[in-house]
């Protein structure tokens, strides 16, 4: 008789017990062959009997939290085929043959060397430099007085280095706590990518506002960024870098993204605009662009006055 494997899952971690005897007992009592220390497991919970014809007999031994097999309550059964999914109390297990196929090996991000952004330290260094450049450019574009190098340095330190540093630190601690990994370089690469993309999206939103003569592009990019992009980026990181299963990665991504997204959304002017039905200020389209790309046609003064006659007052608030 070929040995079987009992895969026991506890809090996302798996341990494996080989079953090679004719009769194997499972329970919380110390006289069992396999001991499960969970308090919802009975002292003697399940007996597994292997017959000579390769069939397996499962016998439930408890009335409290009886064993479930493939989601069915069990008293006693003979199984011909594996795998079998078992639930003993809140312990989940799987009875599998020894030759059960395992998932493909996932390469470590670092093993692919220069092939992807996470493969080598020079990519990380390059992205960090790109972030510093973007931070410096941002300072430069918003400096209307003679630029001082010390101010540039302070700005980049405050707005770029500290921002990236705080996120890397917080996310690395979370990664350590949640998935027991510590992949600082990959994290720096990811945070830098997000930082660069954020700046690109902000600039694009601004240009789109001018293009459409409307403020919906920045509003929707703002919500899309925090409610979709950030959780997706974290989930992809957890799946591809931390090698978590998809469902778990999505849940963790939502958990990690919430403290970033919720305050940003709550404090945003966009949300206030959507929720508050009154504003004493005139919300007009004040965006201006050096490129002057706009979809609206220019009109004559007379046409403007004619069209302006149709402008109704705003809604009265409740």
């Amino acid at each position: 008789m070929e040995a079987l494997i009992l895969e026991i899952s506890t809090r996302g971690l798996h341990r494996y017990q080989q079953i090679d005897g004719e009769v194997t007992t499972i329970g919380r009592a110390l006289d069992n062959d396999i001991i499960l220390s969970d308090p919802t497991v009975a002292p003697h919970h399940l007996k597994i009997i292997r017959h000579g014809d390769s069939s397996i007999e499962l016998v439930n031994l408890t009335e409290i939290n009886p064993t479930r097999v493939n989601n069915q309550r069990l008293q006693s059964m003979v199984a011909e085929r594996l795998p079998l999914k078992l639930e003993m109390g809140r312990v989940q297990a799987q009875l599998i043959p020894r030759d059960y196929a395992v998932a493909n090996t996932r390469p470590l991000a670092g093993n692919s060397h220069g092939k992807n952004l996470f493969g080598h330290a020079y990519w990380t260094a390059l992205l960090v430099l790109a972030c510093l450049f973007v931070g410096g450019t941002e300072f430069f574009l918003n400096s209307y007085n003679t630029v001082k190098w010390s101010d540039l340095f302070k700005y980049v330190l405050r707005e770029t280095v500290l921002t990236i540093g705080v996120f890397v630190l917080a996310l690395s601690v979370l990664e350590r706590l949640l998935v027991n990994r510590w992949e600082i370089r990959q994290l720096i690469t990811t945070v830098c990518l997000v930082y660069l993309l954020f700046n690109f999206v902000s600039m694009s939103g601004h240009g789109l506002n001018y293009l459409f003569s409307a403020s919906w592009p920045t509003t929707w990019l703002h919500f899309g960024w925090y409610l979709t992009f950030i959780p997706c980026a974290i989930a992809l990181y957890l799946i591809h870098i931390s090698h978590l299963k998809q469902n778990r990665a999505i849940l963790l991504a939502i958990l990690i993204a919430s403290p970033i997204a919720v305050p940003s959304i709550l404090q945003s002017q966009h949300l206030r605009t959507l929720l508050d039905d009154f504003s004493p200020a005139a919300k007009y389209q004040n965006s201006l662009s050096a490129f002057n790309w706009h979809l609206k046609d220019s009109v004559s003064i007379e046409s403007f006055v004619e069209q302006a006659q149709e402008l109704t007052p705003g809604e009265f608030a409740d």
Partner: protein
Amino acid sequence: MLLRLIAASLLFAGIFSPPALAMDSKEIYQLNEKRVFQVRVLNRETGKKSSIGSGFIVGDGSQVATNYHVISQVVTEPELFYISFTSKDGQEGELKLLGLDVAHDLALLGADEPIGEAITMSPLPPRGAPIFAMGNPLDLGLTIAVGTNGGILNQTDDSRILFSGNLNPGMSGGPTFNDKGKAIGINVATARNAISFIVPSRFLNDLIEQSNAAPINDETDLKIEVARQVLAYESSYIEQLLAADWPSLDLRQVKLPGIISPTVRCWDNSAKLSAIARYKRYQIRCANKNHVYLDGDNKFVGNLVYEYFWLESEDLNALQFYNLYENLNKDQIESKLDRDVVSNFNCRTWFIEVSSQELKSNLCRREYVEYEGMSDVLFTAALTGHSNQGFFITLIMTGVDYESTLPLIQRFLEQIEWKP
């Protein structure tokens, strides 16, 4: 020689002594103390004063003149408030509203029967002549303030006289006398120490005449009447603006409408720039002064404000320049009214061709909740297409008929001239 001295003394006395009929403040006070009252707005539920002002007997002896702003609570909440008067010697009685002139901040009230001898009106004495304002400041008792006539102010649409005496809260609605003891106006406002304003009596005469012909009665919707008066005043004001020739002013490369009315004053409003600024900005702000009191919480309408803003730089690149330009392009109407008072703004954007240039323009409009047809309008227009030159105009009008503002905006745009 003695005869010459006597003759010279008589001549001197004849020139420099006051006219025989001139009265001093004591005589004016004594003559009018029974004809000037404290006007009070009382809460029907508590019976207590909600606001106080002054008033005086006019017309047939049963009418009392005061300011609209003294009794405006009766217009906004007639079910909760009523008006009464009390005299220096304790005479009291209820007054009803007979007429309003909101634009000039006047109200005419009426008692059921004559309550004293009416004060007679007189035209304004010469500039510099002594005038005397009576009223009940801060509920402290009837007093008289002495000052001089500073003349009619054309920046307030001729509806205010400058008075060099001190008016204090509670004196609003009281009479201002010449040295013959005749009322030349009604106390209305103060700006600071010894800068006070009086409404000329001719507006009160008009109100008495109109009210005698068609007095306000219980069926009059007071808010509709207030809105009608304000809108009529503002539309007439805009018509006057449109009928006038507008002088131009130059701001760098644009020629713009200048001081379009005597009611408007323009100021250089350019901000002081840092010594290391790599740009130049120039700002001119023009505004009128004839604000119209609407109702509680110092809510005024009738503002006309237009601002010009020029920005240029040889050192900033186009991206830097437009970041700065956009940050500055965010003018708003200063009065922050809440949802009970006004609707939201509705704004729309146009790109308008003006003098061979393209202006990104926004027109915003909101309406007053309780005053039908009354709107606040905000118009902005910013020059586009120049990498290192920016210019924008903001035009604000409050408490106006929206449609009547469009010809004014059109005239503004038509008068903008780009100088290459």
